[in-house]
């Protein structure tokens, strides 16, 4: 069981951004992608979850054998993909609770209604775990949230939706040390044999809390190096210049 990206090429407008990405994330593993600004990390994550602005010109993405590129954005999510966004959207007038509820409702067969009591119970449990104040349930999704609160909210959504493959795009950026620990706690609590993770990050700091099985380096739309945790340490020490050597 794995999420497999094979020779993925993609462009936006007329600019090619992904130039043949190859990556396999088996369930039970946590992979990290690092790489310079503008190298295509967010692009890769958005294409995996189906953003319409990008055109895939070659290659495949499969999830446990299923062709992902064939599915619409919402279908991919229901099939078990989750992306914690680098810049989560604000949704005015839609409360966090209603938003989560609609997302869970979308996963039920037609005619079946969500059990409200159970839903709130689970949500509060996860919020407590993530040390989120309950007032966030009534607030509009991400509206007026601080940067760190938005990231924590993404993790809450991830925990509620129980996906098979989780992509986290710079969830650690902008977090204070306590928030970073909370986010790491969330991810670690979801670590499981039947679940895979892809963490996009600029900092080894995150990887100190969430030990990755593999580290990849992306540059100019390709995975140019892969290795273990030591690769992150080398990057931290030497910067991306070492890629040129």
């Amino acid at each position: 069981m794995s999420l497999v990206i094979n020779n993925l090429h993609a462009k936006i407008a007329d600019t090619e951004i992904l130039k043949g990405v190859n990556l396999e994330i088996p369930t039970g593993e946590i992979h990290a992608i690092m790489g310079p600004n503008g190298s295509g990390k967010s692009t890769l994550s958005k294409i995996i979850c189906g953003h319409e602005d990008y055109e895939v010109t070659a290659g495949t993405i499969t999830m446990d054998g299923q062709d992902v590129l064939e599915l619409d954005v919402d279908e991919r999510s229901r099939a078990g993909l989750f992306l914690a966004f680098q810049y989560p959207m604000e949704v005015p007038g839609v409360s966090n609770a209603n938003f989560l509820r609609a997302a869970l409702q979308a996963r039920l067969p037609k005619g079946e209604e969500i059990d409200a009591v159970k839903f709130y119970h689970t949500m509060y449990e996860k919020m407590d775990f993530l040390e989120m104040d309950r007032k966030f349930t009534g607030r509009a999704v991400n509206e007026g949230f601080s940067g760190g609160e938005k990231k924590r909210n993404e993790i809450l959504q991830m925990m509620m939706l129980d996906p098979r493959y989780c992509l986290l795009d710079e969830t650690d950026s902008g977090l204070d040390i306590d928030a970073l620990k909370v986010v790491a706690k969330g991810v670690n609590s979801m670590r499981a044999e039947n679940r895979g993770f892809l963490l996009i990050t600029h900092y080894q700091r995150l990887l100190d809390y969430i030990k990755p099985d593999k580290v990849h380096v992306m540059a100019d739309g390709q995975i140019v190096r892969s290795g273990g945790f030591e690769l992150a340490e080398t990057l931290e020490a030497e910067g991306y210049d070492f890629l040129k050597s």
Partner: protein
Amino acid sequence: MTLNDFKAQKLQEFDALPLPSRSEENWRFGNLKQGKHETIESFRAADTSVTNAAFIHSVTDLSDDQLKRLAPLLEKSGATLGSPKVTALALSNIESALFIDIPSNEILEEPIIIDYSVISASANNTLLFIHAGACSQFSVVEKYTSNDNAPSTTVGVTIIHSEASATVKHLAIQSVQEESRITFHHRVDGGKDSNISSCILNTGAAWARSEASAYLNENGAHANLLSVSVPNENQEYDQRTFQSHASPHTTSDLLYKNSLYDKAKTVFSGLIFVEEKAHFTDAYQTCRNLLMSDTTEANSMPGLEINADQVKCSHGSTSSTIEEEEIFYLKARGIDPQTAKQMIARGFLIEVIEKLSDEKLETLATEALDQKLAQLRLG
């Protein structure tokens, strides 16, 4: 003036006033197909039932004291934003009017709810006068529905007058039969340091015209004028507003939101008017249109006239479609695109309802909104 004198005066006004015409600013973009209006010779009161009726009276049963309190409201009851003729005729039916008379310091936990069932194939009036005693706090809901599935014409007049430091919340919910026509004339006069909110929610009728005016003639008075409209198919809503500041330190806040579907059309025309002596006025006016299809039409004519100093005023209107990125975010959580659009549109409108800051009123308004949203087919 006795009620009979008032009646005679209104009939006379009706006869003397011309029909509205396109050359009048108030009817620019307005729909002049008056249909049944020209032929209306008399109004009848809509069927009315009241919940929480302790302080509501027929104007024909008032004490002398109450008549005294009613008098200034009658004086101010004429429409000034374009519909004086039909409003005069409706007001000539003054014996059918209701008077809510809330004593000073009275605080009502439960809203007063008035259900109007407008009667098809006839011209209906609803006339409501509200006097808020000093420091009173209460809310009033007016619900407009049709008695059966045939068209009707309705003129609804609601005049609110508050004494010092009163807090009044007023919500009108219009969901009459979809070939009907309805005209509202809402006016609030805020006493010193009073806080009055008036919200209209339109989902029904083929054509609805609403006039909402706030007169802030006493220091420290505050008014919220709110509106939520969800027109679809060929529905047309015409909205006229007036925020008048005549005393210092008065504030008003207007937020109108329209979510338009199919070939729906809205007109918003609002004016903030600040008199010379009304220094330190804060007045805001915002009309936002969400265009849910590319065949809708939203016209906005915001306006300002400021004659005082040290005034904070802003007005603005926007028309936009739902941002793709926003829909994407919801879809990325597994929500199908149709539901995503509905959730975003609902959220856009809910922001107005939340400004009522009253759980019971918000629930009633949200229910009416959800009922309409459930009926919409999305392209």
